[in-house]
């Protein structure tokens, strides 16, 4: 080997000279041939800044992507919502035994799934919003477009923080590593950003009453700024209520700010914030029909069955197998080892003749706002009648589904039904059948305690938020303890998540520990507990109580 070392040394000298010769020869032969290299190395399917100038595409072109990525197409929707909060809120359970039945649905948290929530939030929403601000100077170039960007960002990132707790927010995009903000700081920024959005929209509406410059890019309101204003106010009310236990003063202030803004709230189904158009198809329909990965949860069917809910046939399709339950509405209990398809495939699914390919995905509907107002009234923040708000909420939901409430609101006896799973127990599988957990009835009862009436409000809000509102309903469940949801049949969390108290959050993506280690460690410190599914987030003060206590 000595010889080679010797050769290497010798080579260094030769190499230098050789290089000179070659480069000189190369220059001679090739001349300026490499001047095309920039053009060659440019992807011809790319789009340049200059090309986007026409028709304000340089600003507006970002928005369809941002809007779609709040829910995402089927793959992203499945990972970001359908296989976590949609299950944790009792709406859904998959008949597909992903990862051999060891996955999110039985509390074995799958990093590769959950990290998509970060990807969608930061790369597909905050990324373009950041570019709108920094590259397109949207703040000053177009304050009304900027207002929409802020509303969409708050909508999208509120899901991220509610899933995880502390997240990077104020310092995003500023440096190679990104420090985490506490969840309280994140919420305070949400409120400030909504302030800006509301101010900008009101100023624009005042100056240009009927103008719809955003129409071309709008998947939600076809360019109507007054509707966006209502959405901004309603979103503020929703976020205010999230933090009612953690920071009651701010919650009340922000709730009243939302309720009292002259722009108003979403009050009718015509105001509903929902995504449609631009070829976007309903991901729930897709996952359910194309992938047959979707059944509904046992908690949902137990309430709808128990309440004889007139919405049930619109919302759900009856089971087609096994024989004992054919024609009935029977969901799958969370955390059931579902075997392989078709074992549980015939259990109730969403009604895909109602929820079809292009049915809009609802971001926020009017009934939710009425239930939020009912809760505000119940808490004594307003002088409205909690009962009226509650009943309007139920009726608004009935009309959203195109059914008549009939005697529903005066039903004082119906309660959640027991759940029977005809496929369990079997060899090696625990019994998934379970008694009803709630005794709450439908009709408003002024004599009931605030706790009971809150359960009534949240339970009806939960029904009304089906099928798209899994993220919001999981937040409500953690915040209030309602509705009473069946615990998982099998808990594969390795002791980090209590079966009785249920899952409180999902853990940070593993990639954060490699690419943003100091940032995420700061986040864990702010979280105040281990980075697992058992640690509650900041606004989740209801933790550790098997019986909810909100007052």
């Amino acid at each position, binding site marked *: 080997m000595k010889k080679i070392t010797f050769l290497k040394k010798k080579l260094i000298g030769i190499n230098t000279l050789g*290089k000179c010769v070659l480069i000189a020869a190369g220059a001679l032969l090739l001349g300026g041939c490499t001047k095309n290299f920039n053009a060659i190395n440019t992807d011809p399917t790319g789009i340049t800044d200059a090309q986007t100038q026409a028709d304000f595409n340089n600003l507006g072109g970002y928005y369809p992507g941002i809007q779609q990525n709040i829910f995402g197409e089927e793959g992203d929707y499945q990972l970001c919502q359908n296989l976590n909060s949609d299950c944790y809120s009792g709406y859904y359970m998959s008949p597909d035994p992903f*990862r051999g039945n060891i996955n999110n649905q039985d509390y074995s948290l799958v990093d590769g799934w959950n990290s998509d929530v970060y990807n969608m939030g930061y790369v597909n929403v905050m*990324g373009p919003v950041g570019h709108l601000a920094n590259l397109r100077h949207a703040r000053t170039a177009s304050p009304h477009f900027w207002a929409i960007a802020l509303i969409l960002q708050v909508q999208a990132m509120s899901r991220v923080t509610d899933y995880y707790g502390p997240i990077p927010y104020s310092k995003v995009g500023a440096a190679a590593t990104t420090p985490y903000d506490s969840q309280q700081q994140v919420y305070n920024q949400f409120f400030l950003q909504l302030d800006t959005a509301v101010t900008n929209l009101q100023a624009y509406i005042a100056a240009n009453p009927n103008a719809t410059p955003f129409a071309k*890019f709008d998947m939600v309101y076809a360019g109507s700024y007054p509707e966006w204003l209502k959405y901004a106010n309603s979103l503020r009310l929703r976020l205010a209520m999230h933090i009612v236990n953690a920071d009651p003063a701010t919650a009340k202030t922000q709730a009243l700010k939302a309720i009292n803004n002259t722009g108003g709230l979403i009050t009718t189904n015509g105001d509903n914030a929902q995504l449609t158009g631009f070829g976007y198809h309903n991901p729930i329909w897709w996952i359910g029909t194309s*992938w047959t990965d979707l059944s509904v949860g046992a908690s949902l069917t137990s309430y709808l069955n128990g309440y004889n809910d007139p919405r049930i046939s619109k919302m759900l399709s009856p089971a087609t197998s096994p024989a004992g339950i054919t024609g009935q509405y029977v969901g799958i209990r969370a955390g059931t080892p579902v075997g392989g398809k078709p074992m549980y495939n015939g259990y109730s699914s969403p009604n895909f003749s109602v929820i079809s390919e292009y049915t809009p995905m609802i971001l926020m509907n009017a009934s939710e706002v009425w239930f939020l107002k009912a809760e505000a009234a119940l808490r004594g923040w307003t002088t409205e009648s909690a009962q009226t708000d509650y009943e309007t909420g139920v009726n608004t939901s009935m009309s959203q589904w195109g059914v008549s409430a009939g005697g529903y609101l005066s039903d004082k006896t119906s309660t959640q039904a027991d759940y029977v799973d005809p496929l369990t127990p079997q060899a090696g599988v625990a019994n998934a059948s379970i008694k009803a957990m709630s005794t709450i009835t439908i009709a408003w009862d002024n004599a009931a305690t605030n706790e009971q009436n809150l359960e009534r409000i949240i339970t009806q809000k939960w029904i009304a938020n089906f099928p798209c509102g899994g993220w919001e309903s999981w937040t409500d469940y953690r915040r209030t303890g309602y509705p009473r949801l069946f615990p998982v049949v099998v808990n594969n969390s390795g002791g980090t998540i209590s079966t009785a108290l249920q899952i409180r959050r999902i853990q940070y993506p593993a*990639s954060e520990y490699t690419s943003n280690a100091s940032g995420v460690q700061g986040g864990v410190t702010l979280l105040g507990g281990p980075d697992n599914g058992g640690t509650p987030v900041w606004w989740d003060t209801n933790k550790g109580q098997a019986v909810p206590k909100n007052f």
Partner: protein
Amino acid sequence: MKKSLLLTLIMPCLALGAEARLKATNGDVNARYKENYTVKSIKAIETIKGTVKDSKGEPLAGVSVTIKGTTKGTQSDVNGNFTLQANVGDVLVFSYVGFTKTEVAITSTNPLSVVLADDSRQLTEVVVTALGVKRSEKSLVYANQVVGGNELNTVKTDNLMNSLNGKVAGMDVSPSTSGVGGSVKVILRGSKNALGSNQPLYVIDGVPITNSSNANGQPNSTYGGSPDGGDGISNLNPDDVESITVLEGAAASALYGYQAANGVILITTKKGKAGTPQINFSSSYTNDAISYKPKFQTEYGVTPGGNQSWGPKLSSPATADNLKDYFVNGNNVTNAFNFSSGNELAQTYFSYANTSANGVQPTNDLHRNNFTFREIGHFLNNKMTVDVNTNYINQKIQNTPGEGFYYNTLPGLYLFPVGVDILPYKNDYAVAQPARNGLPTQNWIANEDVQQNPWWILYKNPNYSTRNRALINASVKYDFADWFSLTARGNVDRVADITQQNLYAGTNPVLTPGLNGSFSRTDQTLTQTYGDLIANFKIPMKGAFKIDGLLGASITDNNTVGTNFSPGLGLAIPNVFTEQNVLTAITSNASTVSPGHNQVQSVFGSLNVSYHGWAYLTLTERNDWSSALAYTNNESYSYPSVGLSFIISDMVKLPQFITYAKVRGSYAEVATPVSTYITNPQNLSAAGGSFTFNIYEPNPILKPTDTKSDEAGVDLKLFDNRLSFNFTWYKSNSYNQFIQYTPAISSGYSTGYLNAGNIQNTGVELKLAYDVVKSNKFSWNTAINYSDNQNKVIQLQPGVPNEQIQLTGNGANAYESVLAVGGSYDDIYGVKFQRNSSGQILLNADGTPKTTDYEKVGNPNPKFQLGWENTFNYGKFTLNFLVDGKFGGQVLSMTQMLMDSYGVSVASGQARDNGGVTVNGVDPSGNAVTKVNAQTWYGTVGGRSGVAENYMFSATVVRLRTASIGYNFPVENSFVKNLRLSLIGSNLIYFYKKAPFDPEITMSTGIGLSGVDVFNQPTTRRLGASLNVTF
């Protein structure tokens, strides 16, 4: 120093001196020409006959016989006979690739009997090296291995590279499992790149070609992917190949630049020869059958209400053989002929080959036509040589078998419940749906994305790929002087592929959007254009030193264009597979094929100095300008190589038994640029009126990967050349790996690229050949090759200690391929059992085991490879066989995991017979557990995401790879000159194989998916016959 100075002076000198010398030499030639053809022709001419044979007594066909000092000559026929007009006193020169050039003086008109010595035993043999430059083997400073065309064509395979398997030390060949015409993965001296290709560069007659697969590429997950359509090298007609030279080390290949960091395979093709026109015809037929089957239990029936086999014990054991109802015998029929003719001034070669093959999967077939036309002309008094070689290849492959879970027939076939009759599903794979007015949809026992009715896949998920390829090489060489020539070459390799897969309504809905079926279609054309200009010089010097070398410049341009019509939201009217009938989606239906345009311009030089014919020094230097590195400051970069060899046997006097001894050493660098378009990330326009913002973090300091390698070796020939021995040691380190990483996600980018890391390969190669018996009547030659390679990931990103690069993600399945510091390339990661300190498996209360996160469970690459080839000649008979072994390594069988979890495997049946699976476990309370219910156990341990640790098998495999026995019919016929019939076979016997599949095969010839069996097609045993006739 002196040598490089010379190099600097040569360029201008050449330009100035060339014209003057041109005139002078032209004059000389004219004079000589007159002498040859005018003066000598006056003399009386005799008819000289003779025979040329090799040292084993085999007649040699096609040997060039020329009269020394003239261009007159002929070539030998298949019986080795030649006839030409010459004079007593003339000297005949016999030359033939692979044999020593021999001169014989004509002393009488009696027939001559000439024996040519095999080149492996000779020292002056010429070897084709980089850029097609021929050099004496003696002067080479690096290892090279030559395989002759006959060796490749004795036992034909549908991919040329499969014929090299086991023959070349340091080469790891892994055939893919994609049926006839499938791709092959070839790795020389270990994998070097974390991203990009690890396969060698293929060069035909000095000029690079592409080895591209079609736009479908290769699968990158255990789910499989679009069908493989074969690689570039599989398109060639093996009959056109004269010889293959394998340049494994960087020193040998450095002149080819970036494409050659993984080694080079040089293919020398046949050309026309002056003399009697010759027609060769060859025909071969082989019959293929699967060489192993999975083992099924026969006692337990279907799970009531389900599709698994966990049901009650059957009253009598199941007797059906579902595999017999599915697999067929494959076959391969190849007919080829070539025509060679020429005179001193022009030589013509034409060939046509037709390959028709059927796979063991029904409906899988391949049809290929190869046309080759090559013309060599000599002009301007033989000063100028023009060589044009055109190839046209037309290939169609139908129903390439799926790999992995999707579109693969085998999951459905293997997992089918025991005791249920599969024939109704075979006969009626589609049933009419009254509700859809009779539309036929799939009839199957399960509704799962991982299994469909096998016959439904065959007939209702059909795929095809067609390829039309034109490969045109042209070169013009002009000899300005004895010591200086200039060569200009060009090459266009244009590969046009169309692939399509139709998915009929009724296909599993996970695989096709909507309920009406869908299709995907790709139409892609790849054009590689290459041109170079090379000045070769040999400085006329007197004395001990001799200097020669070359200077050149080249340009390589690769451009891929095309369209990809994706399924959209499926079809509007069921099963009408037209583009108009596709429902549009947010992601547009038709999109540009992942485009790629890159260009590399280079200048290079090589200088060879010899001293007294026993010391040789070779220096090379190359500078590349790469378009892929535009937008950085690194688009120009250069790399050197240096090597030294000493012929000890010529330097000093060695003992008598050592006929030849050489030591050699070299050091070389090769730089590989980054992928196309990476340095210039852009926003992209998307359908639906939006644009997608760039998600790639820009990195303006990207640079090439730099592979530095050392090599040293010894070549010996002993006992009068009967024993030859070659030994090579090498070590290569590939620095500045091109690595994809995930930036802090809060940066707003999801993906980034950087250069970091160091992947090291070290190993040795050893070859030993011995003529055990050497006589006219009987000879026996035996040859052994040995190689090993240790691959080690020394570093990935500095400062990120636990970084891993996933070559294959787990996708919720049991297998991952991971590159991690301290590990090696292709490491398999999977979950393991959690165990206590005494090794007991920790069990949950229900008996299922607790498992770890994904950890390393093995590596599939062999620790070493050994090949042993024997050739016997007895009279007219020739017997050849090759035994080879790949030793060490572990592979994962996901097929077995699923068969266990579905209760169809033998193991699952035996466990039930035994009252459960025998385990060494401990329950949560600390009590020992020795038996667990079979269904409970295999439900967790088996299955798609089961415990990989439990399904790792030894990858060691020793087999009789090929065997052939041939007979030369004694033909005394002026029309038929030679007739040879051979019985051939390949993959005949597994002497040792512990895995339930052939560990050598691979799901992907790209990066990742090594050493995992996910319902891979079984390898086949091939038997047949071949016929060669020369007219």
